[in-house]
């Protein structure tokens, strides 16, 4: 769970969604900070009062001066060493979906912590999180996502569903190349299913398709979708790869993206890239 949570608020309903989600994800006794980003032209603490009342919890208020909300929140997360940053959806987004605006998505890219995007209307529907979905592909990042989902489920009494999307690239990147890879897509899906069934306490499924699209469709059945971020690039940072980037604008539930593991927490760079990359000549 998360100990040091920063929530972006701006007085709009979407911000209330973010606060509601943050309360679900924060550890009991964890620190919750509401941050309002502005360009230095308004006494923003006053604006935060309604958000504070709505939150109904002990929180710290922070007024942040920056050119853009995403940039300000990113920088504040670095300053306060937050382990989670929660934002609401863009107001153009559809009800029940997570949607980030382009600028905010770019600004959160490279963030030093996990980022959660509350689906629009989360605060009103405000059901407890009953079903948590995990994008699983056997990589260290997805294993960490599964572990966190189990932890969240244990504390909220939710159940965990996991989906492995089999596309030829994702299989090869995980390092799990089944012996039967040449047989057929059906065989690949079957072996993925066997792998998913072996996961304890998890309702696992495997299908063939494009990971972003299939996971977006899968998210319809869950209250929160947890995904790892890309398995290369700067460690301990959340860098959007093509799948998490797609989900940040198409998920049909709230979305939680975890940063890349530090090298020591993963299997090590050799183990990860052993199958993916081998230089020759």
């Amino acid at each position, binding site marked *: 769970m998360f100990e040091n949570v920063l929530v972006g608020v701006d007085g709009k309903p979407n911000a209330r969604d973010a606060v509601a989600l943050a309360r679900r994800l924060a550890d009991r006794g964890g620190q919750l900070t509401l941050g309002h980003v502005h*360009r*230095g*032209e308004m006494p923003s603490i006053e604006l935060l009062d309604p958000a504070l009342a709505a939150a109904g919890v002990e929180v710290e208020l922070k007024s942040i*001066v*920056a*050119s*853009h909300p995403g*940039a300000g929140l*990113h*920088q504040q997360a*670095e300053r306060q060493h937050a382990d989670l940053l929660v934002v609401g959806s863009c107001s153009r987004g559809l009800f029940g979906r997570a949607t980030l605006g*382009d*600028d905010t998505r*770019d*600004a959160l*890219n*490279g*963030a030093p912590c996990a980022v959660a995007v509350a689906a629009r209307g989360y605060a009103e529907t405000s059901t407890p999180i009953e079903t948590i979905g995990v994008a699983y592909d056997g990589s260290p990042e997805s294993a960490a996502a599964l572990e966190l989902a189990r932890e969240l489920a244990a504390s909220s009494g939710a159940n965990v569903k996991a989906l492995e999307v089999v596309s*030829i*690239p994702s299989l*090869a*990147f995980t390092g799990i*190349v089944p012996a039967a*890879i*040449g047989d057929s897509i059906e065989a690949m899906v079957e072996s993925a299913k066997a792998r998913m069934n072996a996961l304890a306490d998890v309702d696992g499924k495997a299908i063939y398709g494009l990971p972003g699209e299939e996971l977006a469709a899968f998210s319809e059945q869950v209250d929160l979708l947890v995904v790892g971020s*890309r398995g*290369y*690039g*700067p460690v301990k*940072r959340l*860098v*959007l*790869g*093509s799948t998490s*980037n797609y989900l940040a604008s198409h998920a049909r539930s709230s979305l939680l993206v975890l940063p890349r593991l530090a090298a020591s927490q993963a299997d090590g760079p050799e183990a990860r*890239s052993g*199958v*993916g*990359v*081998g*230089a*020759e*000549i």
Partner: protein
Amino acid sequence: MTMFENVLVGVDGSPGGRDAVALAARLVAPHGHMTLAHVREGELNPLHAITPKLVGVERASSQQLLEVERAAAGVEAELMSVVALSPGRALHEQAERQRADLLVVGSCRRGAFGRTMLGDDTRSALNGAPCAVAIAARGFAESSAAIARIGVAYNGSRESEAALVAARALASTEDASTRALEVVSLPIYGVGPFAMPIVGSISEVLERANRRLSELQGVQGTAVYGLVAGEELAAFGDELDLLIVGSRSYGPVKRLMLGSTSDYLERHARCSLLVLPRPPAGDTAAQDGRTAATQLAGV
């Protein structure tokens, strides 16, 4: 004066790859090291996995492709055949391994002639890269061997100062002219080194930007007003052979993180594009400029 010392270039036998080699040849230092990398699927392709002979065939043709590309470009370069399914990811990881200071790729085939265009997956893969990334405009190899007109996106930030230093260094070796464009949009003025209350009109702000630009030595500076910096900079590319921009000013240092402007330019620049990684933190703007200058000058 020297430029990049350790340059990695992605080639795939397409014209885009040849554009990349041509651009890399302009950006590499005289005694710098160039590596041409071709990414192939190898045994990761299921068809290959069950037909081992195909892997050997692919390996041989990959090597041949690399040799042909090197000979065609007439450059000295190390050759490297990398096994991976995503070219962008493989180049990103290879750049980390060989500690490249520049990675050069061509534009995606769907792009328009004379413009840069990266596919979605490649763009995602290069995001967070450990070095500068250059994208050759389509047709760069055929149209021009020289870089005569270099442009810099300038806004007074440390990142843009570093871009300016790189532009000057390159201009002196290429005998090119340097131009700087500052896109003034009001929100920028609320933060950063030029934080000031917004008083007066856009024309006053423009005038101030123009004055600042006129103080830059050896550079022809222009300031324009535009809501979206990316759009104005993309259009600026019409008059240039190479546009140099810094990457976003926050997030991991020494990494190239795409902000909204560089992200836009990767798909819309109308000339070749060079994006520099974020300079290390803790330096003042002046020190930072010197560091970048020293690195580029090889001093």
